[in-house]
């Protein structure tokens, strides 16, 4: 198959980054066994050719590197060698017999023969045995043309099968098609165990085993608690697809290939789901994506993926996609389909009218964390230049804005400090308020790999997330924190470190501001922060916390990973600073294996923050009140920029209800579902005169809109995303935009209609402008991205190839700055009326508001949001599994079905927000982080009672949605 664009990847090894390896690694080739890193080189001779490789490399890999390709079946270069098929046998001078080259390490002076008559005969015999128990339906097999068994049969010159096909065989074994995305046809299985090893080593789930011995051995998905055989869907399998990719035959096969046939070309692009930012080959047939295969050359994912990125791309061509622009005068009218020009003119006229009537500041916009950097940049540029104000914000407001604030205040840069790979050097991993195996699965797998190698694990979470205890992993400490008490916890950790002599004095002296440190030290040593005193607040046992602090501070490399369980609190920013304090106090900054790492939710949260989406910051976190910053932009943009920060999303809502904010341009964001206190949001949206929504579906917000501009999915446009490691990855168009315009083109058209001219021919020109104006992007260009594959910002004259690890020698603010983080209890407290604390989160198979994943077969795993509740709390309330439960807070009420689980602690309930009709955010309040207004999603005081009918809100929602659905149908007719 032809792989267009970028077969040649950047490999750090070849660029002199210190990884010892040879010449060029071609990621489209399988080298049989994994790369071995060692300082020692070994020279040997293979088929008369002299070859030098690192010590520990297999003979197979050494040969492959020299382009001597030995046939193989059970080996693959992302798995440890197993040596079961014996297809790769070779002869070694001075040794008896024929060893398997995949399990034989190279030795100095070794002389290897990979081809001769004897070897060929043995290989043919082995192949004959395999084929005698394999259906001969190659011509009609979905793997035809992409089957390693077929290739190897050809390579070894198999011509006849003497044993016949009548003997005992597995040809009638039953298929398992329970997984919606791939099928398992054991009649074609050669029991090479690649799938089993992929599930263990790559994914870390251990769902598969080889059962039985010899002829009877087969791949098994385990048994359930009743002792019956599992199928894939009922097993522990999380549908990551690693086994499917590893399978050399058509035994494990994507259903899309079975149904649609083999792809004929492929294009490298980036997953648009989560902040891991996996690189994929979109394997295509014409304009149709057949399958997504994670690319081994992808620096963030190194050939792995999760169920969302690999399989859940069908939404892009779902029938609900809206591909024609629509307008209407008010939201109680049916939609009317119009041309792009009509829709854009309608929107521009309305915006201009509002501004002339209500003033320049009466409109604003929201950029998307799902769109590309270039698109986000354009939207904030439109707002600043064409609207003439700074009323721009982004959905990062509701997830990671405290990260930006907290890390900038302490470390001087609003971003994580490491690469993902750095975790492989961590000795202790502390995970706070994050659930990587569900929300950042590919990174979760990497972390699990390190944990299986022996790194220690501290989990700080109110829930028993999967990481606490899963196959071959057990957290050393699970600190079951009470929601809303993070800062008390982090201060207690710091207190132990400061009072037990665990501070890294050298680091603090050399790298930190002394005055800030002294103030902090005095603050933190106070007895009120001790684990014994705070234990009543946090619910964490003092001794356990002391031990966890000693563990984190006591090793060479301690790394902290955190998620929305840290940021989405009234003290989110303080907590981020508290985490940075811990890292500074223990010197865990500025090298591999350590650091402070926010795990970002959506694919381009980092990018949307970097691109100036916030109302107070121009791209690159350049404050808008600084004259010099504005001047540079003013010169290039040829327009005056307002010196005052604009409104944030919640302030926009308040102003809308107040009547001073009337128009909103909202790109790729569903604020009506994702933002807290839904009823308040709905009231605000209803109060506006012109809402322009640009999205691929008629989302919840669009039900309140006056103009709908059809968006383009990530498959339909060029651009870049920036992942949680600050890694800028290319997004490449694989099919034309269904609606005729990519999002950046629509924004441009709107800007032009508003009278501010934009004229870019390609996103690369937008990137050139970003690089010109943003110091941390100064060295970024599409050419360099082609050349290097990806770039981690800052990328400038000092770091022309980007910066994998931040703060190596100093901080952007010079010295690191300890921050005083006083614990201030949230006003959201359990009370007589609302005795439970509700916290919210997400799960593996669904993504955010679910608009995309709900339109795929991922529904099989999670078709409704449930309320997780501890058995004690359930019993007290007479709630049984699957009962309807009304959840009420001071903001509102909704009804969900109960799921009773001991993974919750008593007093805490939990739900997800993937389905709009669940109304999880009807219950969440407008409490927010003190510094950034990031909503306090993680703490809401509620009561849960058994009910029989949906809540009033849900009934109203049903009616409203139905009416809006009819308005849409009318437009289509």
């Amino acid at each position, binding site marked *: 198959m032809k792989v267009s664009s970028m077969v040649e990847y950047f490999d750090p090894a070849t660029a002199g980054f210190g990884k010892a390896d040879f010449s060029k690694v071609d990621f489209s080739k399988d080298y049989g066994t994994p790369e071995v890193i060692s300082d020692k080189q070994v020279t040997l001779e293979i088929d008369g050719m002299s070859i030098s490789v690192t010590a520990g490399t297999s003979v197979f890999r050494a040969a492959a590197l020299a382009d001597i390709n030995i046939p193989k079946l059970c080996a693959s270069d992302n798995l440890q060698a197993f040596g079961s098929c014996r297809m790769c046998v070779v002869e070694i001078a001075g040794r008896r017999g024929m060893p398997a080259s995949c399990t034989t390490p190279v030795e100095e002076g070794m002389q290897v023969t990979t081809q001769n008559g004897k070897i060929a005969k043995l290989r043919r015999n082995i192949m004959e045995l395999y084929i005698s128990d394999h259906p001969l339906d190659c011509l009609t097999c979905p793997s035809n043309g992409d089957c390693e068994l077929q290739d190897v049969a050809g390579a070894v010159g198999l011509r006849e099968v003497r044993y016949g096909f009548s003997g005992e065989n597995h040809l009638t074994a039953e298929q398992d098609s329970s997984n919606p995305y791939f099928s398992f046809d054991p009649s074609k299985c050669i029991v090479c165990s690649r799938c089993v090893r992929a599930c263990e080593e790559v994914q870390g789930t251990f769902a598969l085993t080889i059962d039985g011995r010899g002829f009877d051995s087969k791949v098994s998905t385990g048994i359930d608690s009743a002792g019956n055989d599992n199928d894939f869907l009922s097993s522990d399998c999380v549908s990551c697809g690693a086994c499917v990719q590893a399978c050399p035959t058509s035994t494990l096969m994507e259903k899309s290939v079975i149904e649609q046939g083999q792809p004929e070309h492929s294009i490298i692009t980036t997953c648009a789901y989560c902040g891991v930012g996996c690189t994929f080959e979109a394997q295509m047939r014409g304009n149709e994506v057949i399958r997504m295969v994670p690319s081994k050359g992808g620096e963030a994912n190194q050939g792995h993926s999760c169920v969302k990125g690999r399989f859940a791309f069908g939404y892009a061509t779902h029938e609900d996609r809206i591909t024609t622009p629509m307008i209407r005068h008010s939201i109680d009218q049916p939609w009317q389909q119009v041309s792009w020009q009509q829709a854009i003119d309608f929107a521009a006229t309305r915006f201009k009218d509002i501004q002339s009537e209500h003033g320049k*500041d009466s409109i604003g916009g929201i950029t998307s964390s799902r769109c590309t950097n270039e698109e986000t940049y354009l939207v904030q540029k439109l707002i600043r230049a064409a609207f003439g104000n*700074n*009323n721009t914000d982004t959905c990062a407001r509701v997830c990671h804005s405290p990260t930006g604030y907290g890390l900038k205040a302490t470390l001087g840069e609003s971003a994580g400090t490491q690469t993902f790979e750095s975790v492989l050097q961590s000795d202790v991993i502390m995970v706070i308020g994050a659930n990587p195996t569900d929300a950042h699965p590919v990174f979760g797998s990497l972390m699990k790999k390190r944990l299986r190698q022996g790194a220690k694990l501290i989990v700080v979470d109110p829930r028993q997330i999967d990481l606490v205890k899963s196959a071959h992993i057990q957290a050393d400490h699970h600190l079951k924190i009470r929601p809303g008490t993070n800062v008390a916890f982090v201060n207690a950790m710091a207190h132990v470190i400061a009072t037990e002599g665990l501070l890294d004095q050298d680091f603090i002296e050399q790298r930190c501001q002394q005055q800030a440190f002294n*103030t902090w030290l*005095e*603050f933190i040593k106070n007895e009120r922060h001790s684990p014994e005193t705070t234990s009543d607040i946090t619910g964490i046992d003092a001794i356990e916390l002391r031990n966890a602090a000693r563990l984190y501070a006591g090793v060479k490399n301690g790394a902290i990973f955190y998620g929305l369980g840290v940021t989405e609190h*009234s*003290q989110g*920013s*303080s907590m981020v600073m508290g985490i940075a304090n811990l890292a500074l106090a223990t010197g865990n900054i500025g090298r591999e294996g350590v650091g402070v790492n926010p795990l970002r939710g959506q694919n381009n949260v980092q990018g949307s923050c970097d691109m100036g989406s916030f*109302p*107070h910051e121009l791209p690159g976190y350049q*404050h808008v*009140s600084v004259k010099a910053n504005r001047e540079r932009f003013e010169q290039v943009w040829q327009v005056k920029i307002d010196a*005052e*920060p*604009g*409104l*944030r999303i*919640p*302030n926009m809502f*308040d*102003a809308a*209800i*107040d009547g*001073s904010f009337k128009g909103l341009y909202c790109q790729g964001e569903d604020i009506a579902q994702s933002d807290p206190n839904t009823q308040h949001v709905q009231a605000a949206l209803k109060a506006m005169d012109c809402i322009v929504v640009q999205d691929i579906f008629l989302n919840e917000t669009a039900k309140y809109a006056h103009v709908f501009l059809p968006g383009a999915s990530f498959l339909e446009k060029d651009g870049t995303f920036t992942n949680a490691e600050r890694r800028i990855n290319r997004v490449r168009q694989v099919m034309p935009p269904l609606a005729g315009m990519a999002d950046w083109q629509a924004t441009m058209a709107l800007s032009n209609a508003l009278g501010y001219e934009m004229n870019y021919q390609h996103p690369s020109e937008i990137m050139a402008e970003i690089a010109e104006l943003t110091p941390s992007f100064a060295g970024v260009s599409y050419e360099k991205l082609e050349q290097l594959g990806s770039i981690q910002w800052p990328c400038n004259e000092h770091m022309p190839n980007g910066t994998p690890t931040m703060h190596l020698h100093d901080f952007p603010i010079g010295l690191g700055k300890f921050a*005083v983080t*006083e614990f*201030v209890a949230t006003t959201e407290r359990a009370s007589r009326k609302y005795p439970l604390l509700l916290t919210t989160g997400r799960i593996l198979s669904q993504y955010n508001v679910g608009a995309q994943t709900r339109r795929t077969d991922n529904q099989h795993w999670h078709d409704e949001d449930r309320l997780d509740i501890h058995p004690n709390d359930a019993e007290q309330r007479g709630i049984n599994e699957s009962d309807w439960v009304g959840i009420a807070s001071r903001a509102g009420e909704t009804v969900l079905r109960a799921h009773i689980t001991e993974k919750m602690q008593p007093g805490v309930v939990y739900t997800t927000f993937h389905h709009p009709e669940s109304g999880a955010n009807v219950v969440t309040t*407008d409490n*927010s982080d*003190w*510094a*950034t*207004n990031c909503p306090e999603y993680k703490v809401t005081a509620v009561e849960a009672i058994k009910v029989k009918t949906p809540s009033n809100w849900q009934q109203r929602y049903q009616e409203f949605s139905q009416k809006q659905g009819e308005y849409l149908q009318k437009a289509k007719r």
Partner: protein
Amino acid sequence: MLSLKLQNLIKMLNQIAANICLAGDEQQAAVEVAHHIVAFWAKSMKVDVIEYYQSDGEQLLPVSKQALDILIANT
């Protein structure tokens, strides 16, 4: 009754004041609170909360008030 918008502004300002209380040094804290407001709040928000402070101000914490004094003095 104060408008919802104003109630939120008061709440936000007091929350900032509560979180920036620097180990008892009120004056320094007020300076930082004022700085935060300048750096992050939209003009209309500043105007609204100052107007409230000058006409009523009852629900504001002492540090919040001091911060607004600084803001007023600098504009």
